[in-house]
């Protein structure tokens, strides 16, 4: 993108948003909306950020359409374009409903782009007690719920059973419960040839999984109220030092990343199938990929575990939110309810089971933020077999019961960028972990202070 492009995009913002200034402090919101689960609805629910790409989506969408009665649903498919969404809110022409990452909800809420859902939850009778606490926390900003949590994403330890066996290790050595054992297994599984790395022993997945390793070591990157950065906590520093040492033992992050990037991540030549990776923590959806493209890969699974051996997972996922100025908040609220209620998830899971059965594939479960739904879906999935895929599904549900999340805050992206930038500097050898995290804390705290000050002034 050249200067013209940058100015052009800024221009587009100006044309759409700038010209429509004045919506910022208005109190239109959804104050005149009347939420009632028995009300007859009409109009069109325009949904931004949601795509009905599989049976999990279409089954629930069909239920939602039925419950919406005369109201029609119109999807603006594709991942949420934040710029497009915010511009639409600023110009007074927002969609009725938005589907976003839960980590974005705090930022949207602090800027007044989405509205509190207290009335919606009450009027539509949404049972928030069924939602996992970590998921609900992530969409709760300044004590008000701004999003209805949907899917859940957790990490599992995923390993090549053959490499473990050949090096005299088991899955327990790489699940994170003993960092020395992980480091030893890392060294034992690492293979080099002519100075070039051939097999990654263990990939600690930096920078993205620093929050997971910090939590496993007993620390949070940010305080529970979302106001204080705790990046220079000695336990975070220790976690980073250890996670980096995993790469150092293999010749450095550059070597590992080069080999990681050369892999056919989504194909049958993936790192596990090709025997070029010993173990790593990875989100549970990758189990589906592996099962699809390399069902015979020698896999072993477990949860990620903390130093006490307890399962631990950093939960993230999606949520439904109602934009400020939504033209049809009542229908939007009902759709959010139906898409996330237990019966809808069960119907979706049944559709997935039938589809898998027809294709001769394995149903590996669905992970939602709805505990009731998860419990029932868990019973449909194989969790008690001896094979690796059953282990994976069992580990996935176990991890889902032991999740933590980052609290919602108004500077989510800047906070994340602050620590990721500094972790990257450690990985490239430009800084040592303690200095990097001290600098990260300073930058993150400044971003938080500025964002919270703006919110507190409102």
């Amino acid at each position, binding site marked *: *993108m050249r200067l013209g492009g940058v*100015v052009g995009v800024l221009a587009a913002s100006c044309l759409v948003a700038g010209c429509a200034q004045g919506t910022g402090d208005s109190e239109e919101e959804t104050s005149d909306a009347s939420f009632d689960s028995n009300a007859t609805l009409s109009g069109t629910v325009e949904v931004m950020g949601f795509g009905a790409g599989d049976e999990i989506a279409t089954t629930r969408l069909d239920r939602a359409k039925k419950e919406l009665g005369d109201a029609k649903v119109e999807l603006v498919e594709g991942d949420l374009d934040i710029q497009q969404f915010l511009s639409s809110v600023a110009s007074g022409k927002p969609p009725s409903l938005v589907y976003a990452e839960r980590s974005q909800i705090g930022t949207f809420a602090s800027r007044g782009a989405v509205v509190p859902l207290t009335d919606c939850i009450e009027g539509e009778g949404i049972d928030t007690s069924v939602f996992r606490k970590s998921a609900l926390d992530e969409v709760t900003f300044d004590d008000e719920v701004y999003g209805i949590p949907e899917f859940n994403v957790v990490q599992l330890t995923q390993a090549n059973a053959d490499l473990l066996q050949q090096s005299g290790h088991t899955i327990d050595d790489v699940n994170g419960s003993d960092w020395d054992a992980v480091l030893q297994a890392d060294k034992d599984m690492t293979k080099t040839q002519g100075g070039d790395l051939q097999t990654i022993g263990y990939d600690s997945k930096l920078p993205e999984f620093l929050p997971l390793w910090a939590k496993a070591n007993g620390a949070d990157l940010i305080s529970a109220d979302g106001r204080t950065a705790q990046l220079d906590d000695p336990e975070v520093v220790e976690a980073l030092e250890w996670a980096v040492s995993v790469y150092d033992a293999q010749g450095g992050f550059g070597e590992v990343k080069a080999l990681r990037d050369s892999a056919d991540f989504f194909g049958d030549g993936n790192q596990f199938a090709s025997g070029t990776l010993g173990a790593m923590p990875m989100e549970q959806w990758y189990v589906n990929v592996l099962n699809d493209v390399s069902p015979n890969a020698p896999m072993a699974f477990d949860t990620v575990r903390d130093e006490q051996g307890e399962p631990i997972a950093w939960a993230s996922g999606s949520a439904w939110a109602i934009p400020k100025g939504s033209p049809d908040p009542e229908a939007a609220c009902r759709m959010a309810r139906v898409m996330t209620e237990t019966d809808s998830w069960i119907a979706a899971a049944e559709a997935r089971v039938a589809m898998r059965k027809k294709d001769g594939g394995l149903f590996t479960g669905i992970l939602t933020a709805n505990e009731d739904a998860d419990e029932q879906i868990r019973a449909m999935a194989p969790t008690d077999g001896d094979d690796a895929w059953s282990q994976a599904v069992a580990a996935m549900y176990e991890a889902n019961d032991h999740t933590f999340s980052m609290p919602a805050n108004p500077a989510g992206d800047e906070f994340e960028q602050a620590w990721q930038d500094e972790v990257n500097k450690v990985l490239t050898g430009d800084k040592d972990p303690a200095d990097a995290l001290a600098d990260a804390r300073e930058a993150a705290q400044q971003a938080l202070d500025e964002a919270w000050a703006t919110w507190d002034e409102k």
Partner: protein
Amino acid sequence: MSLAAPASTGTAAPARPPRRRGGSGRHRAWIPLLFISPWLVGFLVFMAYPVVYTGYLSLTDYDVINDPTFLGLDNYRELVSDEKVMLALRNTFVYTLMSVPAQLVFSLVLALLLQRAGRAAGFFRTAFFLPKMTPPVAVGVLLLMLLNGQSGLLNELLGWFGINGPNWTTDPDWVKPGLVVTSLWTVGSSVIILLAALQQVPDELLDAARVDGASWWRRLWHVVLPIISPTIYFIVVVDTIASLQSFTEAYTAFFGAGNTTYSNDAALFYAIYLFQQAFEFLHMGYASAMAVLLFAIVMVVTAVQVMLSRRYVHYTGGAR
């Protein structure tokens, strides 16, 4: 031969020039404007207004949703103290200083070779230009594959000569050279422009130099380059501006979604940081100040190039 005077009409008033169809002169002045109005409207709406509005936003705190709050020059003060702005500027200047000469020399070499290609020139012209048609996002992805330290084609080639290539995409010292190498792939348009200029060099001048005993190198240095210097100047100006605004390839390779969360400070170009501020952190006012600063930098650099051109660029016939 004499010219007969027009017959006098006595006291009659001088005849008024015949009135043409189409209205008065004042009205006629609007006709050209009417014809170019689609461009004018486009320019005003999509260029002039946004530029002026960007200037205004640069003086405000604006997050797209809420009304801009006037800050005066605060954004510009923050720019000066922002370490990442300085880092991004340094990266951008270093990349520009490396890529512009490299692209120019590479284009010139290819153009000189093409000039001698004879009947095959048409094929090679097309071949050299094709990469230019490749979307920059694809080039960014390609960069990661070609320059992969483990399995990349470039290190494979270096390996044939016994050279153990670096980790181009992860080693901060090699990230910018890697981007420069990739940029050489898309010099097609410069090659075509230079080839056209080379074909305009008068044969008699080259023959005269040859008769005087000038070698190929001296003919190139003393005859060809001075004559094509306006073209070289044009390419340098355009490539410099483009390099100062580099974004897509580096963003795709090092900051895009496909790269998860790993980024590399060595690839943080100014336009990338501007984009992050505007569209990831929603600091539209600050990003606007950055855009204004970049605009000023481009203007200054171009002005310096214009001044230098008076000394180093030779215009045949004095036409500028």
